[in-house]
């Protein structure tokens, strides 16, 4: 299997097409523009539909329509555009439609900037739109995972009838690394007897999120929560390095995990016992494993490109057993391994509260 040097945004797009993508509905915004450009170039030649919508709002609603019609469908955007999609995402989650939504995160709030950031963590994992719902949130850590987690994303979306978000960032989207695509070309599509694709020879199907009778709506919500519990039980993914003997465990996802890995290597060279814990699913968050790793005398250091968002989930998981600290940069600045290492030294030398 040949290695190809690709941008993360392109690797993700190619993986989506190979996963049997039938429609892509998008809207221009930096730093995700390679995704719609790749789709416009390749998808129509490979059996799919590409359409530039009039807005992110329309794009996500086109996704709703196509997902309801039973095909694999995707949209991508960057932070301000993802905010516009939140209404549609809430409807998609409520109607239990499978789709993949890509957020190549840039710095915010507001129009913010176009540099890499992770400030959309809460929006992705805690809701973002209105109501009680969850997205399955996957956080790739390199270009290969931009591809692999997109493939996985479509499978999970179909398996659970749930929207999946790929939470990437400007670095992962723009950077090039070698990527290998599996050659088998098998698309693991599932039957969708619920799809609205014409009621020929069957009862009609309805794709709907309106639930106006309270006792019925509550029952439906409880069913949805039951599904979320099952996802929590079955789909948690993470990676850890050098955690066994670690005095400080760095916790980070995506680009922050890359920086944290470099910091860990620098620290180990100095003889400091530092490990790395990288959540791959941000929802469901690998809280159980983090709880197991928590013990007296061990600290956690959340590494983020946000103001202290993921750290809240780390704290919930660790539940006071170990101290949890933060090393972060904001505004599109990327933390350096040296910054993180300095914070590790502060922790080990007792210079932080």
């Amino acid at each position, binding site marked *: 299997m040949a290695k190809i*040097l690709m941008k993360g945004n392109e690797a993700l797009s190619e993986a989506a097409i190979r996963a049997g993508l039938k429609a892509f509905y998008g809207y221009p915004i*930096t730093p995700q523009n390679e995704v719609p450009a790749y789709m416009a170039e390749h998808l129509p030649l490979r059996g799919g539909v590409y359409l530039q919508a009039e807005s992110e709002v329309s794009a996500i609603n086109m996704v709703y329509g196509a997902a309801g019609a039973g095909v694999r469908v995707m949209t991508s955007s960057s932070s301000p555009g993802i905010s516009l999609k939140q209404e549609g995402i809430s409807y998609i989650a409520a109607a239990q439609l499978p789709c993949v939504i890509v957020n190549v995160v840039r710095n915010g709030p507001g129009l913010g900037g*176009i540099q890499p950031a992770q400030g959309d963590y809460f929006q992705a994992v805690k809701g973002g739109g209105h109501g009680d719902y969850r997205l399955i949130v996957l956080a790739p850590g390199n270009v290969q995972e931009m591809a692999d987690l997109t493939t996985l994303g479509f499978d999970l979306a179909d398996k659970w009838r749930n929207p999946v978000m790929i939470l990437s960032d400007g670095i992962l989207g723009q*950077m090039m*690394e070698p990527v290998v695509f599996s050659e088998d070309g098998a698309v693991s599509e599932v039957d969708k007897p619920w799809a609205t694709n014409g009621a020929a020879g069957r009862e009609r199907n309805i794709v709907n999120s309106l639930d106006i009778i309270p006792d019925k709506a509550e029952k439906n919500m409880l069913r949805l929560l039951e599904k979320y519990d099952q996802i929590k039980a079955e789909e948690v993914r993470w990676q850890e390095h050098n955690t066994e003997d670690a005095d400080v465990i760095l916790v980070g996802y995506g680009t922050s995990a*890359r*920086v944290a*890995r*470099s910091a860990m290597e620098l620290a180990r060279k100095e003889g400091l016992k530092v490990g790395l814990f990288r959540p791959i699913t941000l929802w469901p968050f690998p809280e159980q494993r983090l709880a197991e790793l928590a013990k007296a005398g061990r600290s956690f250091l959340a590494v983020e490109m946000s103001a202290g968002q993921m750290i809240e989930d780390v704290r919930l998981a660790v539940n006071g057993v170990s101290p949890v600290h933060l090393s972060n940069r904001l505004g599109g600045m*990327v933390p350096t391994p040296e910054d993180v290492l300095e914070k590790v030294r502060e922790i080990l030398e007792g210079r932080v509260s």
Partner: protein
Amino acid sequence: MAEIIIAGFGGQGVLVLGQMITYSGMIEDKAVSWFPSYGPEQRGGTCNCSVVIAEDEIGSPLVTVPTTAIVMNAPSFDRFEPKVGKGGLLIYNSSLIDKKSERDDIRVIAVPANQIADELGNARVANMVLLGTLLEATNVVKTESVEKALKNVLSERHHDLIPLNMQALERGRAYQ
């Protein structure tokens, strides 16, 4: 591990040079990453890219303390000359940069890359001249990998440009 920054004006072939090195590293089965500055920076202003070539999995793809910096214009010299790590290498385009490094803890090589490229009859190969200097000064990637990379990166109809590129590379080797 090589952590390289390449910087210059948009249009000087900064990003392509970075991709060439990255591609060559991939051919040698090394772990590689390339990350460009992006957005309005690319258009008209200065641009740069980070290249990391390693034996093992790469951590941060954003180079903050380069082992090598290749700078092609004066603003990039000002920005990256102070950032090169101790014992590192600075290669700069002396055709466009009328400056000298005061640092004594790094190796500095001045290459009149535009002048050489003009002598070769194609201003666009200035970046390849600097790559030649890099290949001679370090063993980051092999010359034959670069030749293979050129064949892969350039479309068939541009393969007639490969000898010119290799010639530019050879001229760059002379500056050490």
